[in-house]
């Protein structure tokens, strides 16, 4: 289904962007992991969010989410894998499905993990970020799932259900992928498995993996004062644009990005 704006990420930056897109009369879809998987959920107390001292991270997230729902934002659970532009639309893939919009706000938080040795080298050659996409190619074969969320466990169950033999690594600190022309073996925290494919399932993909060609600076998405990225129609807000990694900063940037995205959509409509 077509939307005016797709927001990737359901934390403070994404929810603030969604509220502000709705305030400008545009439709918005927020794609995110379950609220409980947001890193803020585990914060015992947030004391520097103006006007609401002493709230727990979970309370704050639920309050922000309720506000965005009230404003008329739509929600969809899932992990965004890729985005690609065609003419004046952005297509965004979510698991086995896709959605499209005129503009995108990237608010997926910090992709915390660095790439593992062998990961980039074997991506597409026995390393995959999407079990629902590539799983079927490995039916009846041994695979490994390196999982960093509860959703990853569900994807591992899916792989088992279609006939893969799954070795599951739960939140390992270090992994290395080894092979020849293709990945053949993965070693995580000293434990090895010989596999045909390694599914690396982190909570969020790195912005450069989601948006090929997006400019980054010191590992963060490069934005201007309007929160515009180097790609037309793509805006970014929150932790993915750099520190301080704080709720107030994320909400403020979300507001700017949401308004900029709504303006971008309005300008496009005017040009037609």
């Amino acid at each position, binding site marked *: 289904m077509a939307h005016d704006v797709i927001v990737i990420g359901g934390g403070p930056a994404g929810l603030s962007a969604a509220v502000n897109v709705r305030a400008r009369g545009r439709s918005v879809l927020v794609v995110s992991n379950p609220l409980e998987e947001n890193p803020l959920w585990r914060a015992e107390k947030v004391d520097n969010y103006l006007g609401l001292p002493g709230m727990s991270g979970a309370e704050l997230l639920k309050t922000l989410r309720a506000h965005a729902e009230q404003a008329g934002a739509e929600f969809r659970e899932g992990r965004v*894998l*890729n985005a*690609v532009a*065609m003419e004046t639309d952005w297509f965004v893939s979510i698991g086995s499905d896709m959605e499209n919009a005129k503009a995108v706000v990237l608010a997926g938080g910090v992709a915390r993990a660095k790439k593992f040795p062998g990961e980039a080298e074997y*991506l*597409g*050659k026995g390393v*995959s970020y999407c079990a629902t996409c*590539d799983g079927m190619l490995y039916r009846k074969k041994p695979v490994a799932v390196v999982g960093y969320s509860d959703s990853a466990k569900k994807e591992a169950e899916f792989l088992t259900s279609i006939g893969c033999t799954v070795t599951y690594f739960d939140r390992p600190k270090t992994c290395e992928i080894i092979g020849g022309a293709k990945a053949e073996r993965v070693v995580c925290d000293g434990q090895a498995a010989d596999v045909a494919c390694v599914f690396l399932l982190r909570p969020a993909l790195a912005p450069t993996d989601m948006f090929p*060609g997006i400019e980054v600076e010191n590992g963060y998405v490069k934005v201007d004062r309007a929160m515009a990225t180097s790609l037309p129609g793509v805006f970014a807000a929150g932790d993915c644009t750099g520190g301080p990694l704080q709720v107030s900063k994320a909400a403020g940037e979300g507001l700017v990005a949401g308004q900029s995205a709504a303006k971008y959509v309005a300008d496009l409509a005017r040009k037609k």
Partner: protein
Amino acid sequence: MALQHLTEDTFDTAVNAAPLAMVDFWATWCGPCKMMGPIVEKLAGEYDGKALVAKVDTDEEADLAEKFDISTIPTLVFLKNGAEFDRKIGVTPEAALREVLDANL
């Protein structure tokens, strides 16, 4: 020629006869593949008469996928008279596909 859907039976004949071909290995369960769909369709129309643009459903045609050693989808394979000379793995922007096609027309 509009977009062609190739099978094990039709693949060799179609691809061997084409001076230039781009084949999209995809599947219905794959979101990134669905995203590439409109782009591949558009290119099929635009390169009509100049290049063969085709799709192979890896679920229906598992042997073809195996023959081309497809380990992730979408994978776009470029061939000249049936011989592969390039491939793009994963979601690839339209401009990058166009670049390969234009350089080999």
